[in-house]
C-alpha cells in the first residue's frame, strides 16, 4: 500500500498552495476588517480578479471535463485542492465549475445553461428544500401542473444557496400528485430549469454564516415543456445526484481550515505566557493540540479514501457519508478547542476563529445533517449493503 502522492498531485497541490499564500491569504485582514464593518468580506469584483488570475494559468473548472474547458481533475486531486483552499477563510474558489446535473442537460439546455454557468456569465441555484421538507426531501409540495405545452409551478422553497444572485433555478416540483401521495418519488418529481424572469422571487435569509441563502416563491410561474431537465417524473434521482455530488469535498475544505487553526493555536500557545510559562507547556493545551491533529489525520484519510473510491468508480456513498459526518463533528470540536486556546482573543473578530466557528457549524446541517448521515450509514450496514470492514473487505 502506497499512501504517498504522485508527482502530478504534489505539483498541482504546490501550485494551489503557492496561490493561496501569495494571492488569497494577503486579503485576509481586509476581509475581517470589512466584515467588522458589516460589509461583504470578499467583494465579487475581487473574487473575479483572483479567479481571472488563476484562469490565466489554466486553473479553471477543477472538476469540469476538459471538453467543457475545465481541468477535469480526479476526485483525489479535487480534494487536495479543496484542503489547500480551506486553509484560508477567504471564501475563494476557482471559477469554471457547474452543477453536476446540468451535464445531463440536452444540447439546447447545455448551450443556454451549462456553458454560461461554467463561464460564470450565468448563476445557478438548486432548490429542493421547502419549509416542510428538509431532511425528508420526499415531503416536498411544490407542484407543477401541465397546461397545454406549459407547466405552471406553485410553491415555496427555502434555504437556497445563491438564491439571491441566481438568474436561473433548478427547481424540483411534484408533477404526479397520485404517485407522490403513494410515496413513489421516483416517478412523481420533475426538475425544471427556470429563468428568474419567468417570475419567481427570492428573499435573503440571514444566518450565522457569511452570506444568507434565500427563500424562493413560485406563484403561477409558467415555463415551456422544454424547461424540464432530464425526464418528466425522474427529478428525484437528479436531486439525489446533485446532493451526493461531492460530499467528500465539504469536509476537505473544513480540514484545511482546521490545519491552519491548529498551526495558529500552536503559535499562540508558544508565545502566550500565564503563571510564568508558555501555555504550550501545559498538558491541557497539549492534549487539545494532540487530539485535534489526530482527528485531522483521520479525517484526511476518510476524505482521500472516499475520493479515491470515486475515482475508482466504486460505490463511494458509504465512504462519502462517513467523511461528511466525521468532518462535520470533528471540525466543530477542533474549532471550539482552537478558539479556546486563544482565550478571550479567540472570541473577538480581530482573529478569524469565531468566523470559522460560525461557518463550520453549517457542515453538520446542509447536504445531509449528521443524523441523516448516521441514518444512512446504519441502514446500509444493518441491511447488509455494506460491510463494517470498509472497502478493503
Amino acid at each position: 500500500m502506497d499512501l504517498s502522492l504522485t508527482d502530478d498531485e504534489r505539483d498541482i497541490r504546490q501550485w494551489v498552495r503557492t496561490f493561496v499564500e501569495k494571492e488569497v491569504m494577503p486579503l485576509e485582514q481586509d476581509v475581517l476588517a470589512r466584515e467588522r464593518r458589516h460589509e461583504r468580506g470578499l467583494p465579487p469584483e475581487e473574487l473575479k480578479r483572483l479567479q481571472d488570475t488563476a484562469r490565466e494559468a489554466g486553473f479553471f473548472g477543477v472538476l469540469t471535463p476538459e471538453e467543457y474547458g475545465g481541468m477535469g481533475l480526479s476526485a483525489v486531486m479535487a480534494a487536495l485542492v479543496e484542503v489547500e483552499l480551506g486553509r484560508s477563510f477567504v471564501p475563494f474558489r476557482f471559477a469554471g465549475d457547474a452543477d453536476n446535473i446540468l451535464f445531463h442537460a440536452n444540447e439546447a439546455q447545455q448551450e443556454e445553461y451549462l456553458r454560461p454557468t461554467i463561464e460564470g456569465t450565468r448563476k445557478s441555484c438548486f432548490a429542493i428544500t421547502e419549509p416542510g421538507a428538509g431532511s425528508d426531501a420526499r415531503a416536498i409540495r411544490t407542484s407543477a401542473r401541465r397546461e397545454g405545452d406549459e407547466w405552471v409551478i406553485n410553491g415555496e422553497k427555502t434555504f437556497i444557496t445563491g438564491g439571491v444572485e441566481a438568474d436561473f433555478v433548478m427547481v424540483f416540483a411534484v408533477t404526479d400528485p397520485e404517485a407522490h401521495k403513494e410515496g413513489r418519488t421516483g416517478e412523481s418529481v420533475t426538475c425544471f430549469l427556470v429563468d428568474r424572469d419567468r417570475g419567481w422571487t427570492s428573499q435573503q435569509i440571514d444566518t450565522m454564516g457569511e452570506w444568507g441563502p434565500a427563500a424562493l416563491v413560485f406563484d403561477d410561474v409558467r415555463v415551456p415543456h422544454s424547461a424540464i431537465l432530464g425526464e418528466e417524473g425522474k427529478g428525484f434521482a437528479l436531486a439525489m445526484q446533485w446532493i451526493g455530488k461531492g460530499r467528500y469535498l465539504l469536509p476537505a475544505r473544513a480540514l484545511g481550515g482546521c490545519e491552519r487553526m491548529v498551526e495558529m493555536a500552536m503559535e499562540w500557545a508558544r508565545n502566550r505566557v500565564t503563571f510564568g510559562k508558555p501555555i504550550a507547556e501545559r498538558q491541557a493545551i497539549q492534549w487539545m493540540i494532540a487530539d485535534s491533529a489526530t482527528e485531522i489525520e483521520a479525517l484526511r484519510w476518510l476524505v482521500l479514501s472516499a475520493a479515491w473510491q470515486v475515482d475508482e468508480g466504486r460505490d463511494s456513498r458509504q465512504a462519502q457519508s462517513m467523511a461528511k459526518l466525521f468532518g462535520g463533528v470533528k471540525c466543530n470540536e477542533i474549532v471550539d478547542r482552537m478558539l479556546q486556546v486563544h482565550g478571550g482573543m479567540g472570541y473577538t473578530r480581530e482573529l478569524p476563529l469565531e468566523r470559522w466557528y460560525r461557518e463550520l457549524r453549517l457542515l453538520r446541517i446542509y447536504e445531509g445533517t449528521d443524523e441523516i448521515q448516521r441514518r444512512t450509514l446504519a441502514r446500509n450496514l444493518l441491511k447488509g449493503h455494506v460491510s463494517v470492514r470498509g472497502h478493503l473487505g
Partner: protein
Amino acid sequence: MNIVVCVKYVPDSQSERTFQESDNTVDREATDGLLSELDEYAVEEALKIVEARGGGEVTVLTVGPAAAADAIKKALQMGAHRGVHVQDDAIHGSDAVATSLVLAEAVKKATDGSPELVLTGMASTDGTMGVVPAMMAERLGLPQVTYASELTVGDGTVTIRRDGDTASETVEASLPALVSVTDQINEPRYPSFKGIMAAKKKPVDTWSLADLGLEASQVGLDAAWTTVVTFAQRPPRAQGQIVTDEGEGGAKLAEFLSAQKFL
C-alpha cells in the same frame, strides 16, 4: 537567442531557518526548499525575451543538493526549456567563489563554450551576498551588467536600467553578457496547469564535478575563502515603547522618531 538562467534552491524564507551545528552551514534538511523568489524574476525575464524574439531556448542551471531539482522543476513549469543540475557531495559548504567557479564551468558546458546571454537574480534570499553574478562574469570573461530593473536586448547589445538611490543609470554592454535582474523588472508568472504537465517531459541533465572537469579540492568547505565562525538565534524583539497621550503625545512621538533618526 539562447539564454542560461542561474537559479538557486533556498530554504523557504517563510519557515524557521537555521544552521547545522556540525559545520555551521545552512540546515537544508530542516526546512522545505524552493526556487529563490529573486531568481523567479530572472526566469521570467528570460522567458519574455525568448517569447518576444519568437525563438531560442531558456536553460535553467542550478548547483545544489538532490532536492534542488525542485527549483529546476519550478522554472520548467514556468516555461523554461531544459534544466541542468550540478550535483556533487563535494560541493557542500562551497562559498561564493567556489560556487561561481562551478556555475561558470556549467554555463560553458551547457553552451558549448559560447554563451549568448546569462541571467541571474540580484541575490539569493538565503545568503543575500549578491556577488556570484560578478564573479561568474569575471570567470566567463563577459561584461557584467548588474541590478537591471529594465532589460532590452538589441542587435548585439544589451541595455539595462539600474536604479540607484540618487539616479537611474542606463547601461549598455555588448553581447554576450551576464545580467543580474532585480525584483522590479517584471511580475513572474505562475506556472500554468499545462506547464506543470509539460515540465515532466523536459530534459534535465545532471552533472558532477568530474563532468565539468573540476576537482573536489577546488570547492566545498575546505576550499572556502570565507567561513561562518558562529551563529546565534536572533534575539526576540524587545517590548515596544508605548506613548500615552496626555496632551503632549504628538511631541513625544516626534522626539522618539528624531532620536531614532527617522526624522
